[in-house]
């Protein structure tokens, strides 16, 4: 194979691997925005929280409890950490965000910004600011697979496949099930849905929990790849905002497709001009704003 093509494919795979996180985070952001009209700035911080919970379950919980042999591994963490993040999200919704729904949505953005600072500050105080590697990667996912054009880490392949399933599952729930129909109806006209006897405040809380749980799940998946650091969500959230502006916040599928494609594009940019890979998504956002301000999948108006 031509080495150039090989390189593009390889960087594409790595880019896709980042795209996983863009897709899962912008998906959660879109689900939340749809029903709550809230842009959750804390989404990146909750992603970080998910990663830290995985790390804590593996490395810190045992010593804290005086049980040095206790390591709660990756698979249980993949379930527990997102649930805990979702629970935390629901507390935020129930006790803080709920007071702001009648106001301009910028207030909820600012509130979640404040939460971001608090979470980051707390973790910087207790953990190494420059990151801690996650030691709990399961043996079954160690090693590499031969993709023909490159040797690709098994774990990363797992992450790609797993998150595609999660994204598709979320799309299916929202677009094809009875629960999803309630959610869509609530997005359009919450008052009427309430009048039909559906507990909309509860639905809102659960939806926020679901969206933030997705962020937590992404965090757990990220832990074995990137080192777990208090600032891992900080710069990511801004990229996610750009992804959301590019895709338009209206569509679930749009968020997923945009997330994966931008990861891919970012990866391939590395091949041609590495310094631009930081900014290529932002530059694409500029182009989209110029030619289609409502976003690729956004509705007019």
């Amino acid at each position, binding site marked *: 194979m031509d080495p150039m093509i090989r390189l593009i494919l390889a960087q594409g795979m790595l880019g896709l691997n980042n795209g996983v996180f863009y897709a899962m985070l912008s998906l959660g952001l879109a689900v939340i925005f749809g029903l709550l009209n809230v*842009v959750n700035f804390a989404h990146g911080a909750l992603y970080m929280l998910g990663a830290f919970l995985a790390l804590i379950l593996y490395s810190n919980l045992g010593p804290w409890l005086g049980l040095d042999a206790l390591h709660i591994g990756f698979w249980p963490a993949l379930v527990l950490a997102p649930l805990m993040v979702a629970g935390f999200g629901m507390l935020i919704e129930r006790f803080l965000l709920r007071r702001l729904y009648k106001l301009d949505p910028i207030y909820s*953005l*600012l509130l979640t910004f404040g939460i971001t600072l608090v979470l980051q*500050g707390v973790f910087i105080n207790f953990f190494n600011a420059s990151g801690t590697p996650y030691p709990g990667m399961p043996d079954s996912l160690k090693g590499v697979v031969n993709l023909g054009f490159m040797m690709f880490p098994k774990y990363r392949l797992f992450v790609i496949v797993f998150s595609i399933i999660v994204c598709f599952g979320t799309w299916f729930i929202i677009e094809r099930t009875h629960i999803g129909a309630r959610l869509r109806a609530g997005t359009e006209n919450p008052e009427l849905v309430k009048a039909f006897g559906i507990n909309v405040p509860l639905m809102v809380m659960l939806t926020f929990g679901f969206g933030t749980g997705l962020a937590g799940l992404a965090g757990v998946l990220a832990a074995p790849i990137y080192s777990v650091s208090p600032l891992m969500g900080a710069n990511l959230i801004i990229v996610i905002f750009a992804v959301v*502006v590019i895709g338009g916040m209206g569509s679930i599928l749009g968020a997923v497709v945009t997330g994966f494609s931008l990861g891919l594009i970012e990866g391939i940019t590395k091949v041609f001009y590495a310094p631009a890979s930081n900014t290529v998504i932002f530059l694409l956002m500029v182009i989209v704003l110029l030619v289609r301000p409502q976003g690729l999948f956004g509705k007019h108006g």
Partner: protein
Amino acid sequence: MTDIAEFEAETAPETMKRGRVVQGIMWALLIAAVLIAPALLYPVFAMQLLCFALFAVAFNLLIGFTGLLSFGHAAFFGGAAYIAGHVLKVWGFPPILGILTGTLFAAALGWLVGLLAIRRQGIYFAMITLALAQIVYFFALQMPFTGGEDGLQGIPRGYLLGMIDLSQPLNMYYFVAAVFLIGFAVIYRVVHSPFGQVLQAIRENEPRALSLGYNVDRFKLLAFVLSAGLAGLAGSTKALVFQFASLTDAHWQMSGEVILMTLLGGMGTIFGPVVGAVIVVALQHMLSGIGSWVQVVIGGTFIACVLLFRRGIVGEIARMLKVGGWL
């Protein structure tokens, strides 16, 4: 964000009279505080206060008087600091010219960013400004002249008009004080001009302003450029004061801090951002011993302000004295 009843109360004759008096007192207090500050505080700290106060006042023109939440103002503040620093240090510009260059750069950058961001409204506007500012941040990180992680260091203060030695703290202080007062007066004039009235009409009800025939986008853009330019003035001045420009100045957290200053002091008030800036900077100064708990405190203040205290300090005082709009 003021409602109609409040607005009507504002224009009632007794309120206007009381408002003028209270505002006069505030002006006197502000000028007096600026003049005597170096007797009470370290000049560098006092100058830091003034730079951030100017930054917040500039920011308030958008959020408070036009209703636009920019989440990218650090780009103008920090970007201008780098440009001013570069021309002062490498090109040997005199102080005033250096600061003006930084200011013009920020205004031009504001024009570009504004042009893009006003294509979307509300919450999207905030996200776009944040993302665009991140481009500036990456430039600050990667461009050859910025010094990367270390920042741009060793910016000379130089001589004002070729005569006054700005390395003397008091000279520097009164120069910064003059810059601040000029910037503050400019914003005050703008807000009280017919142009400012249109901006406030846009904030209250954009569709209505549109239907009255105003070219809303042009007004927004102009407000954005002005605000960015003055944020740049603050950033350039800060670079001269501290003799370096750093990544912190351009980081999104700085954009968040200026929002907090404005929110805490009172969005849409004249003096609020100054009060907010003084409190936030002083708080950071006092808490510098507790490391990154500062961030937790700042974040907590944010949450408290949004939940309990949306009018801000000056906004609350104005309400208690029933002089809404005059402070």
